[in-house]
């Protein structure tokens, strides 16, 4: 040890907690389980909604959303897909946006914006079912 660093810490110990955030695995697993759920939910909604609503009729849309199975399915679809979107867009933001302020601002917009829209969409399904 001839350098200025006389500590007994190893090289690994010095870089620990200074590099990767250490929480990437959670993000990875969350994006995978939400993806697996969406493999079922997304095609179910597209085919089911296209076949049962199949046009611009307001009454047909209300009929579709007041079926209990459809209502639960749509609520699950909103929650899981918006969560999956938040994770995906976060990945896109950290990949392309380097300016710290812009990056944080976009990540907040991503999180808050999707949470507000998801809450509104879930409340809309409840409103259709249980009246204004």
């Amino acid at each position, binding site marked *: 040890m001839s350098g200025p660093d006389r500590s007994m810490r190893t090289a690994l110990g010095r870089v620990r907690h200074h590099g990767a955030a250490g929480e990437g695995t959670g993000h990875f697993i969350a994006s*995978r389980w939400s*993806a*697996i759920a*969406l*493999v079922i939910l*997304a*095609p179910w909604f*597209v*085919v089911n909604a*296209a*076949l049962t609503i*199949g*046009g*611009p009729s*307001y009454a047909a*849309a*209300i009929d579709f*959303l007041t079926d209990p199975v459809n209502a639960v399915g*749509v609520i699950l679809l*909103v929650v899981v*897909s*918006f969560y999956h*979107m938040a994770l*995906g*867009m976060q990945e*896109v933001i950290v990949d392309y946006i380097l300016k710290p302020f812009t990056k944080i601002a976009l990540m907040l917009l991503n999180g808050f914006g999707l949470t507000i*829209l*998801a809450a*509104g*969409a879930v*409340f*809309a*399904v409840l*409103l*259709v079912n249980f009246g*204004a």
Partner: protein
Amino acid sequence: MAGAPSPQNRPIAPHVSIWRWHATMASSILHRLTGVGLYGAAIVFALWLMAAAAGPEFYDPLMALLMSPLGQIAMYLVVAAIAYHLANGIRHLVFDTGAGLNPSDADLTAWFAILFAIATPIGLWALLTFGGA
């Protein structure tokens, strides 16, 4: 010979303009592109639910927009994007297990995802048009 190239003139590896396009490369780019596109589609989906709750005076104008030629093209592309992101997403879930990563399998499944994205909106349109209720 002019001698060794200067550092500024050295070839840049792999550069988009001189790099041969692969199905696997397109599949990766398309996955992110369709993901971002579906982000916008999901916002419209949330607005559609809120319009349904708000009543016909909000629902009908939104549907008029979606039933217009431009709206129908957008819906067609959204179905294609869902089909692509679904097929390629399953492909990536299989990749996560360590399977299918050799070039020939990855190439084949990339082509499958692309063809699935082309076929699905045509299939759904045919089902709606000729299927009968």
